[in-house]
């Protein structure tokens, strides 16, 4: 457990060290560095959850305040102007390294389990197509959106975002279609029969 905990500062530190190569390409900056920074915060949340004050958990009703914070924080760092500033101003880059784990990853990790399944599905259903749409816009935009990235780097970022959207969409569709355990497996059939029996018993 302690080794796993140590992963958080190590990962944070490694991302800081690797920031130059990751920020060199727009695709790596958007599709690798930003999600990994959020991932660091998410890991942190799993360790901090047992120490979470009760009032804090109760005030985060259904995880909505926390996830709203996630949406605002991630939207802020998706703005092309902020990507530019992160490249040109070291203190803005530092703010990104602090805010994405603490204002996006950490609330995501703590609020996501509190959100009902329907809310999670709603967020996935909105996030995946919008990611694809943003990728499409980067790909199709005739002008540069960031001053520090070339047009071809912008197109590569668009392709990367579309690819991520396709992978996420495919995984999500397969999971909800097949179920867990898969509906064709013996375990899946047993589960279905068990549910039928519960329902029939209730009638």
């Amino acid at each position, binding site marked *: 457990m302690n080794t796993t905990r140590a992963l958080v500062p190590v990962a944070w530190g490694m991302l800081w060290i690797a920031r130059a190569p990751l920020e060199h390409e727009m695709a790596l900056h958007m599709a690798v560095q930003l999600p990994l920074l959020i991932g660091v915060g998410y890991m942190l949340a799993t360790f901090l959850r047992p120490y979470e004050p009760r009032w804090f958990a109760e005030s985060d009703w259904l995880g909505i305040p926390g996830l709203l914070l996630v949406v605002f924080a991630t939207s802020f760092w998706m703005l092309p102007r902020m990507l530019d500033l992160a490249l040109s101003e070291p203190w803005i880059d530092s703010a990104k390294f602090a805010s994405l784990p603490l204002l996006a990853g950490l609330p995501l990790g703590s609020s996501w389990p509190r959100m009902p*399944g*329907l809310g999670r*599905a*709603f967020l996935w*259903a*909105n996030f*995946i*197509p*919008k990611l*694809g*749409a943003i990728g*499409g*816009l980067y790909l*199709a935009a005739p002008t540069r959106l960031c001053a520090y990235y070339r047009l071809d780097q912008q197109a590569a970022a668009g392709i990367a975002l579309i690819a991520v959207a396709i992978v996420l969409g495919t995984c999500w569709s397969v999971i*909800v*279609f*097949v*179920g*867990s*355990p*898969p*509906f*064709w497996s013996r375990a*899946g*059939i047993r*589960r*279905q*029969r068990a*549910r*039928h029996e*519960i*329902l*029939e*018993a*209730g*009638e």
Partner: protein
Amino acid sequence: MTGIEAVGSRSRINATAAVRAYLATCGIVLLLMMLLGLTMRLAQAQWIDVEPNLFYVVMTMHGAGMVGIAGLGGAAVMWHFVRRYVPVSTAIFVANLVFFLIGAALILGAGFIGGFAGAWTFLYPLPGHSGGLWSANGAAAYMAGLLVIGVGFLLLHLDIARGIISIYGGLGAGLGVKQAFGFAPEKDGPPPAVAAATMAAISNVIGIVVGAVVLILSLVNLYAPSFTFNTLAAKNLIYYFGHTFINVTIYMAVIAVYEILPVYTHRAWKTNRVFYLAWVLSTLMVLTVYPHHLLMDFAMPTSILVAGQIISWLSGLPVLLVTAFGALTNVYRSGLKWDAAAGLVFMGVAGWAIGIIPAVADGTIPVNSVMHNTQWVPGHFHTYLLLGMMAMMLGFMTYLAGPKSPSHLAPAGVWLYLIGGTTFVLAFLAAGSASVPRRYAVHLPAWLAYDRAGSIGASLAVAGALILIVRFLVSLRSPIDATP
């Protein structure tokens, strides 16, 4: 109380009251939208005078309103019956109605205050190029209204999908994939209502999120015209959303056939491998058939258009065949005592089946290039929406009203609706075959005979719907427990 109701009854809102609220909303809005449609036909017939600018506002509101109310009515039918088999949230069901009413208010404001007249399909870049007829705010209110309505439907379908997954393990099992491909006994398959609701959830979730993407892009374009995107891609996205949404209304409403007819015939609706296979195939085809709306777009890749033509020939057939055949065998020699509800539901299957024929004709590329901009198209979609989908919804409404409501008027309502509706759609189809264009506010003298026949038919259909809807509204005075 069934096990499902025990699971799903945490909400304090009464489920039957919620269904009644849906149907009351559907009934009132349906009548208003029918009156808007009648106004257009009377104006084309030159029996009343409507300014062309106002005509296109009315056309936009009629289109958007009818699509919305078909969705809402289909959702009411689906939710009422599917909650017998899976746990669903009444609060989410009511939230969808609230979202719908907010969205409808925005859309009506966009049309009648903001003057938006860009047709219900809001084809990019038309909303931003009004020629001074409407403002950016008017177009934005229309699109924001669609977005709000979409949020409600997305939540509803996701909630039903969640319920299906909680009972069946996955949407594949809810659709009956195992039974369709022989992996499991037919007797263990989901009830027809669950298979249909699964199909609706899969199709509409994908369709709605695609629609949301193009709506947001169009909204950005309205206020930042320098931001543009590919018009053909936008048209593809719009029709992916639009076709899927309106098509799914029928698949939701058909649950009324599966659930109501057996009550009258005292025979369970039999499901088998072919039934489940039909639903699986129709799900795949509903998700891929939309290119038949783009057969006139020369820039579309030919392969996609050919695929669109072939799939549009096949798309509706599997479920239609098993439903029509199932309805006939369910009714045949059952000793069924016909009344308004059974008649309307049965009429719905017939209207749907007949409406497919002109649709298949229009889905053929050489025919489409001649017929698509004629009244043939409103002819075909009114056939399976007015005489198919809406007949099923009115049948459900009449069924819920029960025998306590004044019943002697109901058969008159059914006959007026049937005769008027048939006359109305035949006038459209005949006009289309004579190359009368659609979406024209002003008609030539040679076209007036079709318009006048259509106006008479529309008047009768409105009268029939009025009787059936008022009868339902009167029934709302009876206690909720009396509802079947």
